[in-house]
Structures are given as structure tokens and as C-alpha cells.
């Protein structure tokens, strides 16, 4: 069995500064072999380190599912909440303490099925929360059931004859609902993901970063894809936005663009707007 790293934490941090954001004593983590979730956590930590944000200024909030176990391993103010409700709790934290960097880790089922309502309204408000949406096209923790992003024809435990439901395009959904920063990355392209998280945190407004990350056990097994197959799929079927834009229409369909898909600076951030109202009201009382 894997054991927690046996070297002093200070030594580890010296070598890898982003280790300071990890609760090493809570390792080993619960994720399956080949799972991409650890890569996303690593990308978040490296991005925070690059931005020089202290642990004491970060709150990480999640709902339920594999993705939502991330805050447990993150050394900050961490809230592992109820299924689909991470954004509601995070909105509370951000409004009460606007100076905190608030990061939400959520999955495709958590965020776009049970949490769909909170998702579109957080986009609409443009509240300064950075959402890492771990999209693995399936419900991993509950045993591999179909999710709103499961590709058509794919197998899940609740679609034994193949998925017949149309699926969400998460990025389009977020842009349509008013998110001011929307990006897509993958667990394969980690360096690129770090840059996306960095840009997302820097953006003052609602940031959504969809991360394609393989569920090697539930999705992989059901759809006869091995760990390597799944990462290769990410490598071959996603391409940088600039290259994607140059593709002819018929070739675009089978590929997904990576990068910052939407970035608008024309809307005021929610907590900023709220507290300016407070200031006005309080000033008016003097």
C-alpha cells in the first residue's frame, strides 16, 4: 500500500513549492489509478504558487463526487458540502469574506445536473469564484451512471444499451448564462492547465475552467478504454483554440478546442457591486 511521503514537509516544499498547498498527512488520496483528478489539484496548487497567493487566503469548496474530494487534500479553508450545492456555499463564503480567493471543484454531474440551477445563476451574477469543473463524462463515485455530458452512444451503468440523451456543452452553457471567463483544458495538458487556472483566478468575475479528465475505472471499463487510451484520446481530440479556429467546419465537429474560449471584462463583479451598494447606503445614513 502507498504510504504518506516520508520526508519532512519543509524538504518537500523546498523541492516542490506547490506542496505547501497540500495536506500531505491526508495522503494517500482516494482516487483510482489513472484518474486525472490529482493532476487538476496539482495544477491549482502550482497556479496559486505562481500567483503568490497564501494558503490563508484561499477557500476551496466542493459538492459531492470524486472531484469534490479535492478540498480534503488542499490546505486552506475547505468545505465539502452537499451534492450539487458547492456554488451556493461558495457564494456565501465569498460574499462574507470577499478578500478570499474562492475556488470550487466540482464534476459534470454535480455542477450541471443536480447543481445546474446554482451554476447558471453564479454565471449570471458574475461572482468572483473560480470553478474547476472536472468533466469525466460519468458519475464515478456512485458507480458509473450516465451524466449530462456522457457522449451519445457511450455506455454507463444506467445506459446499458448506449447513451441516448443529448449532452450539454458546458462551455456554451456557461457563456450563455453570463460567465465572463470560460476555458477548457485537460488532465493530459497539465502545463497548459496551470496557465488556465492562473488566468481564471486572476480574472475578477465568474471563471469556469472545464477540465476533461478521464475516469479510467468507471467510464474506461464500461467503454473498453484503457488508461493510456483515455489520455491518448485527450491528446488527439483536443487542439489549441487558435488551431481549432483554422479548421474547416466539418473537421471541427470531432475535435474540441482548448484554451480560453471566452473572456469578457465588461461586467462588474458581484461582491464589488454589492459592497458599493452597502457603502452608498451606509454613507447615506451619516
Amino acid at each position: 500500500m502507498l504510504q504518506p511521503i516520508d520526508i519532512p514537509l519543509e524538504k518537500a516544499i523546498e523541492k516542490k513549492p506547490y506542496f505547501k498547498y497540500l495536506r500531505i498527512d491526508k495522503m494517500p488520496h482516494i482516487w483510482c489509478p489513472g484518474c486525472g483528478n490529482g493532476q487538476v489539484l496539482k495544477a491549482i496548487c502550482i497556479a496559486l504558487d505562481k500567483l503568490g497567493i497564501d494558503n490563508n487566503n484561499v477557500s476551496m469548496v466542493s459538492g459531492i463526487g470524486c472531484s469534490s474530494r479535492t478540498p480534503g487534500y488542499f490546505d486552506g479553508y475547505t468545505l465539502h458540502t452537499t451534492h450539487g450545492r458547492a456554488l451556493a456555499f461558495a457564494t456565501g463564503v465569498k460574499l462574507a469574506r470577499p478578500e478570499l480567493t474562492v475556488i470550487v471543484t466540482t464534476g459534470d454531474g454535480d455542477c450541471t445536473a443536480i447543481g445546474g440551477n446554482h451554476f447558471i445563476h453564479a454565471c449570471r451574477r458574475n461572482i468572483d469564484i473560480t470553478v474547476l469543473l472536472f468533466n469525466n463524462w460519468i458519475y464515478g463515485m456512485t458507480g458509473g451512471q450516465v451524466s449530462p455530458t456522457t457522449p451519445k452512444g457511450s455506455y454507463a451503468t444506467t445506459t446499458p444499451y448506449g447513451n441516448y440523451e443529448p449532452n450539454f456543452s458546458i462551455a456554451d452553457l456557461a457563456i450563455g448564462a453570463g460567465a465572463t471567463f470560460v476555458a477548457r483544458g485537460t488532465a493530459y495538458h497539465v502545463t497548459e492547465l496551470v496557465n488556465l487556472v492562473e488566468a481564471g483566478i486572476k480574472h475578477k468575475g465568474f471563471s469556469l475552467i472545464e477540465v476533461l479528465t478521464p475516469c479510467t475505472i468507471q467510464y474506461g471499463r464500461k467503454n473498453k478504454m484503457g488508461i493510456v487510451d483515455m489520455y491518448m484520446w485527450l491528446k488527439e481530440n483536443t487542439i489549441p483554440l487558435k488551431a481549432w479556429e483554422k479548421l474547416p467546419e466539418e473537421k471541427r465537429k470531432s475535435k474540441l478546442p482548448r484554451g480560453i474560449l471566452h473572456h469578457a471584462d465588461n461586467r462588474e463583479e458581484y461582491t464589488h457591486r454589492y459592497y458599493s451598494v452597502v457603502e452608498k447606503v451606509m454613507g447615506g445614513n451619516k
Partner: protein
Amino acid sequence: MAKLELKYGNHACAEAAIIAGCRFYAGYPITPSSEVAEKMAELLPKVGGVFIQMEDEIASMGCAIGGAFAGRKSMTATSGPGFSLKQENIGYAVMSEAPVVIVNVQRGGPSTGLPTQVGQQDVMQTQWGTHGDKLIPAFCPASVEEVMEETIRAFNWAEVLRTPVVLLMDEVIGHMKESVDMTKFKDPEIWNRKKPKVPPEEYLAYKPEEDDVPALADFGDGYRYHVTGLMHDYTGFPTTNPAMCQELVERLIRKVKRRAKELEKNEEFMLEDAEFAIVAFGSTARSAKLAVKLAREKGIKVGLFRPITLWPSPEETLYRLAGKVKAILVPELNMGQYVLEVERCAKGQCPIFRMNRANGQMIYPFEILEKIEEIASGKIVIPVSKA
């Protein structure tokens, strides 16, 4: 000298919340509780607080808990169906020990029921609504002035016990206007959550102190910790260790139960020499009080016992009462909820009669009087509940 102000029940609730130190409100509109939100929207920005109208009831409850962990005294208000929707996150507040006040201005149910009419049908939902074992304190005011007292008390206990507390009102109390003696609320006793006395690296957010309540650090104050709705150890990290899980659930209940005597609050009216007792709460208790006076005029020795703290229920007090009187009548605006608790506590010492209504109408004093006369004259022999 008294300083009387005419106040609307729901507004009084909001004003008292501000006095209690509430600086965070998340809610969703629902009748008959909406005026609490409306007043909070007006008052909170004036004191630097946060008001947010969320997208739904579930979000409101979650948001309020988020605000509580980020250091604000936090509240939400709702009615029947909204209270049902909040239940999962109320359970989360119990498990994660989030201090938060939930106001439920009851209406007729089940389902959307009677949005603008009175009911007292959430007595059991308040205690048993969310899944799993727990003990959630619930306070039940019967006048506008008492709405203010109980709102402040709800915040105080939520903070001290690190637990959700329900303020269980009903439509009549929420929508009535009465004069309130404001001198009582000029400088009320305010309790705050326990902050950790140890440095951040030694802090365990779920290690109970002597009173079974762990100290609570606010997010942003340098005390980093993990919060989850899963069974957890002292650090807050998930665990399935059977001993740890058992200890946790036992403690969550025990921390409230051990303060039951302090939490208990009742009004006793003409009970000293009573042969019969009426047990009623909320707006129904007001009808009952008049019924007691009318019955006394007719020479029937009856008194009123009005629980203000509904949960934890005043077990011993009710037991003693049942041992003292010939019979108890429990009128309530539901099909028989609190009467079950009275029966449980009475342990068969006296017959218990019930009087139930769920049609959105009040129970009038003369109706209670009639029933008391029947009971006193021995016309009804077998309690309805046992017939």
C-alpha cells in the same frame, strides 16, 4: 418606562435578528415569510451586512451556511415547502456544526397547501425533517414581542451550541401587528461563538471542549480546517471509523440535550390550582388563553401550559403536569403532532384529548371552551387519540 412601537411580526423578526448581530441573510421568496427577507434587504446594507436573494431554497440554506463559516451570524427564512427543500442542508449544518438560524413561518400543508393561511404542521418536520439522528432546538413565539425575544435567543443558542436553530412561527404571528416594548431590546444579552484559544497549527475544528462544543474559527482568520457533511474525525477529515462515527453522532445530540434545562422555556397560566390543562403553542395558545379565562368564569379549574421551546421538548415538566391534572387537551393546527410528544412525556398518567384543524382557520377560543366543558363534565370519556 416602556417605549411602545407597533410592529408587524415578520418585520420584528428581521429587526431582532439585526439586534442579535445577524449580518448575513440568504433567502428565497415564499409566503407567508417573505416580509422577513424584505425587511432584511432593507436593514442589512445599513449595518454593512450581506443580503442575497438566492435562486432557490436549497441554495439559500447552503449560502447561509457558507456565510456562517466565513464568520457572520447567519440566517434564512422560509415557509412550509421551502422548509422541506432546505432539509438536506439543515442536516449538513447539524453535521458540520454551523451556527445558523432558520425561520419557518408555517402555513397550511402538505405541499403548496394554503400559502396565505395558518398552519402548525411543521412541528415534526422541524425535528425529523432531515435524515439521520439529531436534536435541533426550535423556539415558538406567540406574540410579536416574543418574536423579537425568541429571534435573539435563537441566534444566541445557535452560536453557543454551534448548531442550526429553528424559529418556528406561524402565519398568524408573522402577519399580525402588535405593540412591542422596545426598551427590552435596547441592550439585550448577546452570545457569540467560541473562538479557538490555541494557535492555528494546534487547532482542531471538531475536537469538542468540555461542553461538547468545539471552538469555531472563521474562514479567513488563519485557522485552516476542513468541513464535511461526512462522518469525520477531530480534524474534520472524513472517517468511517465506527467508534469515531458513534462518538460524533452521540456528541451532536448530547451537546444540545445537556443544556435542555437552560433551553426550556414555557409560559404557565393559571395552572397552580388547575384540574385540567391545555397545552398549546404559537397562535393557538392565544385562543387557549382566552378559553382558560372564559372557563374560569364558569368555575372550571383549567390552566394553560405553553411551550416556547418546542424542541428539546420539556419532558419532565410535562410529566409533572400530567401527574397533577385530571386531563390534558392539546389543540393545534395540524392533525395531531405535538400531542404525540405530550402523550410520550405524560406516560399515561392522565387522559390526553386532542383538537385538530388543518383547514387554514384558527381554532377559536369558544371552540376550545366547549371542548373543555365537555371534558370537565365527563361527556368525553375516551380520549380521541385512543378512540
